[in-house]
């Protein structure tokens, strides 16, 4: 798990232990879910299980079916087949599911004439809170999300403030599962960081599970416990970021630092062990070399073994370039032409 937030590391570490224990119990489960629009299948055979307090990233290129899945799970559109339960309620019990979820849609609009507080109060009341209870909850959420001192109309809010207000609205009913569809779209880096910090804190502190749909792979990589990569309506990879990256077959580079006098031995050993690899030498930094590697837990240790067997003293080894974005491109249709080119060459 690799989350970052505005909280102290101590708090996060303590809470992560609690999250791990809660992962045993799934709060959202789907089995063979299929979503169609007429004859077009937007998503097919979607089977996922998300634990309590888990942040689950749903990734994929445009048209992969992410929003369709979210809309199906939030009862906005019907499912064609399969089944799903959220907080123990089947999707067929729409009212119960809706009472258990919070949703921040991708293109969420806001009533510009209302204030943030009246907006949240209204939604609180729709979730069964009394006016007073809704007011209290609205105040608390506005304060938590840094909007507490703003009593102006929503029309005066910046985009970042609106997104935070949207997040507050999605949390007004203390949901079991929070669905966020591109929550940081159009925000500046500080705004993105702010939203991510808040949702991480929510997941950690209240045990709310988060389904995060985003194109921004960096933020997904940082906050998500597990991810699923979708392509053409199907899940093509699922697991922790490390697992998905490892299984994707995406290439990375290991930067190895050795003593300059060992360069010759290292070069010979690497060429025999990795005959297809083009080993790069950094002339400005004698003793440093780049070795292209496939990803996977074994790749780094294989490289180390090779160098040690050749009597090379490895001073440092850093696996670079193997990020979620590499796995994403390797697993989705976006790289299909590249694959073809590789195969043909």
């Amino acid at each position: 798990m690799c989350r970052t937030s505005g909280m102290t590391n101590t708090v996060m570490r303590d809470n992560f232990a609690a999250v791990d224990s809660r992962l045993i119990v799934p709060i959202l489960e789907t089995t063979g879910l299929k979503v169609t629009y007429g004859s077009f299948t937007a998503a097919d055979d979607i089977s996922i299980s998300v634990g309590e307090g888990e942040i689950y990233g749903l990734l994929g290129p445009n048209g992969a079916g992410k929003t369709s899945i979210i809309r199906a799970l939030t009862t906005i559109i019907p499912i064609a087949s399969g089944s799903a339960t959220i907080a123990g309620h089947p999707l067929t019990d729409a009212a119960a599911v809706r009472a258990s979820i919070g949703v921040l849609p991708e293109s969420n609009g806001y009533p510009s004439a209302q204030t943030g507080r009246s907006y949240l109060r209204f939604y609180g009341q729709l979730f069964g809170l009394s006016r007073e209870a809704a007011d209290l909850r609205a105040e608390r959420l506005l304060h938590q999300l840094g909007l507490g001192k703003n009593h102006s109309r929503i029309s005066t809010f910046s985009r970042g403030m609106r997104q935070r207000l949207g997040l507050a609205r999605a949390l007004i009913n203390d949901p079991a599962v929070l669905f966020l569809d591109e929550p940081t779209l159009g925000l500046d880096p500080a705004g993105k960081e702010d939203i991510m910090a808040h949702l991480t804190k929510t997941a950690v502190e209240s045990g709310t599970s988060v389904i995060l749909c985003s194109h921004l792979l960096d933020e997904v990589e940082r906050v998500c416990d597990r991810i699923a990569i979708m392509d053409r309506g199907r899940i093509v990879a699922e697991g922790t970021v490390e697992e998905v990256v490892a299984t994707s077959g995406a290439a990375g580079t290991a930067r190895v630092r050795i003593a300059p006098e060992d360069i010759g031995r290292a070069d010979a050993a690497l060429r025999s062990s990795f005959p297809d690899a083009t080993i790069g030498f950094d002339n400005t930094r004698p003793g440093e070399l780049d070795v292209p590697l496939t990803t996977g837990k074994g790749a780094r240790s294989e490289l180390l073994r090779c160098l040690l067997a050749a009597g090379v003293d490895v001073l440092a080894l850093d696996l670079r370039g193997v990020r979620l974005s590499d796995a994403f491109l390797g697993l989705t249709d976006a790289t299909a032409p590249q694959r073809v080119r590789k195969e043909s060459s």
Partner: protein
Amino acid sequence: MTTAIRPLPRSARRSNWMVITKQELVDLWLSSKGLSVLFGFTSLLAILAYLASADAGINLLDARESVGVVVQTAIGLGTLSALVVSADAISGERERGTLEALLVTPVARLDIVAGKLLAATTMWLAALLVALPFVAVMADGPGVAFDAVAVLVVAGTLVAAALTALGLAVSSLAMSNRVSLAASIALLLLLATPSQLPAVKANGALGPLLIQANPVSAGLQLATNVLVKQEAWADQWAYLISPIVAAVGLTAIAIALSSRLELGGSR
């Protein structure tokens, strides 16, 4: 592996139409929308009432005819105002991106539609409140104040209920506000067209029938018959049938469509 179950809060199951209505009323009357429409209605009615009153001095219009014209205008513009507001109620939310957040709450679709319908109806009630003093003062001279107010309240409210429900029904299906408003007005014009044909008007049997069949023209004709022609109320019941049927029928359609209330076709 068992799934964690969160019990549904009991309070989340209660009816929410009142909450929706209240919020819609705040949105309608504390934003510029409702007040702008009402200002436009009031201005037009004031101008017309002034012209009709001034005209009485040069005897181009009989005092009763002046009252009839003002009552007809109040009904026509007032009910159209209600239509404009209700036609925006759902498609407007869809267009502004606020509908999805509403649809994922545990509120029943019927509550959403009922709340919006009730709130949109207040547009007519506000127009009625504005029109009543005009009509009462103007109708006092020729001595038809009671009839004028009765026609305005009865016929106007029935037509307004019908048009509000029509606007809402179309709005629940339309993807955009513009489409909703255009379709609602097109339906109105479609209904009114046959009764506006000169040949039909001249035809003694078919003309009144077509006028009676259209709730709007029936309401307006009732005003003419009672206030200008001084015909008895008892003889005018036929002109109330289509407004009643339209009000009940279109409200039923709007409510029935609530079960099919969807975000829209976009993915």
